[in-house]
């Protein structure tokens, strides 16, 4: 095998691996790549601060910890805040809490739920995404208990099952456009809150304390300076022993 064909084969394996293993679960991948991106960006900016001669030492003592804390806090808050907001928005749509009139129109059909098979009846509302992917695929495979055309297709003004199947993309398109829109909006709101409000607040607290510590304004981080306990020398100790009161038990004590 030549080097070129080996390289091509290796490249194709990477592409296929991305399609099969990484693309189905984008959330984790976005988290890892985001974390790496933040760390690298932070490193670059720490270097930028270090080589900037117009910023004096005391200010660098604040800016460098600020930049390092920025990456750490961003990563933590992305996990806690941004992902929570995104999941919340997606679940609103998946569980049928926030839907469009087109989807509502389709779901209101008891016959539609029945035709998809009993197992989907309770699952429809709990996971619309599953309905619009697997449910429709089952429809195509013909996993139906009764013919569809006289109930669902008539209400939706679709003349026959084939046209209904042809509209699968349209109905899925309607659902997925809405789902993606709500997901984008909720993740953006989460990112704005975590990156632009909470992160600057927390990183400034840490950087200010670090600056006070590094510039010698405090000797320990956030701990007050306690007075030293005076130590006793040998002479003082001997004096105390010689002058202490007699503590031997009285001989008048009777057992």
């Amino acid at each position, binding site marked *: 095998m030549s080097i070129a064909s080996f390289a091509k084969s290796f490249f194709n394996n990477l592409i296929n691996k*991305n399609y*099969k293993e990484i693309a189905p679960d984008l959330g984790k991948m976005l988290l890892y790549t985001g974390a790496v991106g933040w760390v690298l*960006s932070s490193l670059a900016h720490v270097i*930028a601060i270090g080589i900037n001669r117009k910023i004096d030492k005391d200010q660098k003592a604040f800016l460098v910890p600020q930049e390092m804390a920025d990456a750490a806090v961003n990563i933590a808050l992305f996990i806690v805040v941004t992902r929570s907001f995104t999941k919340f928005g997606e679940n609103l749509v998946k569980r049928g809490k926030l839907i469009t009139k087109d989807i509502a129109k389709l779901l*209101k059909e008891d016959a539609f739920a029945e035709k998809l098979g009993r197992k989907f009846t309770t699952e*429809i509302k709990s996971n619309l995404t599953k309905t619009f992917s697997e449910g429709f695929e089952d429809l195509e495979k013909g996993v139906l208990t009764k013919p569809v055309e006289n109930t669902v297709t008539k209400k939706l003004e679709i003349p026959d099952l084939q046209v209904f199947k042809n509209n*699968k993309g349209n109905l899925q398109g309607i659902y997925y456009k809405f789902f993606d829109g709500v997901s*984008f909006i909720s993740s953006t709101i989460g990112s704005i809150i975590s990156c632009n409000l909470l992160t*600057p*607040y927390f990183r400034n607290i840490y950087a200010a304390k670090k600056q006070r510590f590094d510039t010698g304004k405090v000797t320990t981080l956030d701990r007050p300076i306690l007075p030293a306990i005076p130590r006793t020398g040998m002479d003082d100790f001997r004096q105390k022993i010689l002058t202490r009161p007699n503590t031997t038990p009285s001989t008048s004590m009777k057992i």
Partner: protein
Amino acid sequence: MAIKIEQNDINTQAPAFKGGWNKVIQSDKVIKRIGDIGGYSSPQSRLIIGVTALLMQTPIDYYNKRVDEETRTVSAARTLAKAAVGTVTGVIVRYGCIKGINMCTLTDQATLDAIKNPFIKELRQCLIPTNLKSEAFAKATRLAEKHKQALGTFVALGVMLITNFALDVPLTKFFTNIFNDKLHQHKKKSTEAKGGK
């Protein structure tokens, strides 16, 4: 074929709706707007977060009472420079990566047949997985879009590794000094104006 919807005909008592609160969006404009936003991806997200960072992070640093005035001013100038430079380079890199990925995942047979050069033809399909059978299948399962997003994220990370050091560092340093001088001049003017009253 478009699906016709009957107005005012939503039965929220149907089995699929039973139990709990739900909100049905009736307005076509709102539905269309949310659908358009669904087409946004990382460049738009970066732009929104970058602009809001300029508007929110800069005042937080400028009015940070935990540090002295000089440090506060430099910190605000640096945040402003970093947000501006990071947003511009971030949006350009992400947009460029998506364009590049789309160019190399061409599945339209008519366009492919029109390409005469075999090398260009292969290049235009080099990022398509070998088991992706048709555009229709890819659209139905959405995996093709997710595949492109995943590839775009990896490529953008690699490109930003270079741009962070080659562009962001020198540009942020340059603009930090400019904004720092401007902020000091502004403070001096406002101090003089207060003293003049």
